[in-house]
């Protein structure tokens, strides 16, 4: 267990705090510790339910843990460890339809889409598929606690987090006007990803703050200025920023994407962007939403998976394809503008004299809110080990 004595500086109020030290971004040992205490102990995002049709299985490697997400023919999504109970073989190596069962490619042990072990061919000898010591009810797939919210597949690997509805209660309440409304996935143009040379936390920290807008997002800043943004902080849950001057896209022929139903006037020109701890970045507007799932690949590498959604089936209507493409291009460009800063911060974390950094109490509150939460999670595990 890495030394956690430095966390007191992070846990201080923002005016006095230091950020998480370099090791939290550069150390494989710390990456492993955070994997358990931050990612596995909480509800973390691993992908999008939109990517799974009924009867399909999709492998997901989550911080090194091999998982497989499965959608039953009835539409229910479950997540299992992607490991055969026999000899540990990876069961599914690419997304595919699983007609009847998930069949291990090694000895063909077959599992139902509910994880139950259906057959163990020749386990008792050739042509004998049973054995007294092979009790199928004890050898089903290891199910990982999962939940789908806003089309995002969340998992709690440890099994110890509160129910998702309680875990995300504050976020669900904040965006209650959107809750329960269908999110229509845009087409292929509305999903994209970035393979980024940075620790996943840097992507969260950058997303939380609007402080960098004038320098990094000059186009966005031309109509959504720094002074039009406000901080959002829900300690222990999420943080981010909001804008008071969202402008819906209007096509050359005067069309706008349809709005979500029944929104209050807060959302006429408002939009909000929050990082739901630990690893999903969300954005909501009156006429579309997006999610960014951060897949930690290593202490210095993250896959950012982006998906855009709409309030109606314009999401799949060919007449709206050009507008959807333009919207996706806009967001792609905005997110791409952030890449050099998060990768630059990652490089800077190799600066041995960097002390975790100093927060602006006025501008960096949401970022410190995240650091503080991470420190409580990592520190909590360290305390338990003592």
């Amino acid at each position: 267990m890495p030394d956690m004595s430095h966390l007191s500086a992070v846990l201080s109020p923002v005016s006095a705090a230091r950020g998480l030290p370099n090791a939290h971004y550069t150390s494989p040992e710390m990456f492993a510790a955070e994997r358990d205490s931050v990612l596995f102990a909480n509800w973390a995002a691993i992908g999008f339910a939109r990517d799974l049709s009924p009867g399909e299985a999709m492998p997901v490697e989550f911080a090194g843990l091999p998982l497989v997400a499965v959608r039953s023919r009835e539409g229910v999504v479950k997540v299992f460890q992607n490991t055969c109970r026999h000899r540990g073989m990876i069961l599914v190596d690419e997304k595919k339809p699983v007609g009847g069962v998930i069949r291990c490619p090694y000895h063909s042990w077959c599992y139902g889409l509910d994880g139950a072990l259906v057959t163990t061919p020749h386990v008792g000898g050739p042509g004998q598929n049973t054995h007294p010591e092979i009790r199928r009810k004890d050898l089903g797939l290891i199910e990982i606690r999962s939940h789908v919210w806003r089309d995002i597949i969340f998992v709690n690997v440890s099994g110890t987090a509160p129910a998702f509805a309680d875990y995300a209660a504050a976020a669900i309440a904040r965006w209650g006007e959107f809750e329960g409304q269908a999110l229509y996935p845009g087409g292929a143009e509305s999903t994209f990803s970035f393979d980024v040379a940075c620790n996943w936390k840097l992507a969260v920290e950058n997303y939380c703050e609007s402080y960098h807008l004038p320098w990094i997002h000059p186009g966005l800043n031309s109509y959504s200025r720094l002074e039009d943004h406000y901080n959002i902080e829900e300690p222990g849950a999420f943080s981010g920023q909001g804008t008071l001057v969202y402008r819906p896209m209007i096509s050359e022929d005067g069309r706008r994407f349809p709005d979500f139903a029944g929104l209050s006037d807060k959302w006429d020109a408002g939009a909000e962007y929050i990082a739901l701890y630990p690893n999903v970045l969300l954005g909501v507007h009156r006429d579309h939403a997006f999610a960014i799932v951060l897949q930690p690949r290593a202490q210095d590498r993250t896959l950012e998976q982006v998906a855009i959604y709409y309030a109606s089936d314009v999401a799949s209507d060919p007449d709206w394809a050009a507008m959807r493409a333009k919207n996706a291009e806009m967001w792609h460009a905005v997110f791409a503008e952030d890449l050099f800063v998060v990768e630059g911060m990652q490089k800077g974390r190799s600066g041995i004299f960097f002390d975790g950094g100093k927060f602006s109490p006025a501008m960096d509150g949401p970022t410190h809110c995240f650091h503080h939460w991470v420190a409580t999670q990592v520190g909590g595990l360290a305390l338990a080990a003592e």
Partner: protein
Amino acid sequence: MSVAAQTSQAGRMTDEADLDSGLMAAFDAGDGAALIALYGAAGDLHAARGDVDAACFFWTQAYVFALDLGDARARHLRTALIAQGREE
């Protein structure tokens, strides 16, 4: 070895050779339906010859591929295997 036994042995070799070549072709083509049919037929053939162990081996192979495809023949194959005490 008697002629009958030799003929029977030669017949088995022809059957097995046909089965093997058919299986290889089906595996190469990724033809699950053909694998079910070939293994199932092989199982039936051995069952007819009274070789229960061989029959259950081939029926098991067919059963697995039927499960994999969600093929309706899985139910019949499972029934046959249960009847021989080879499946639950």
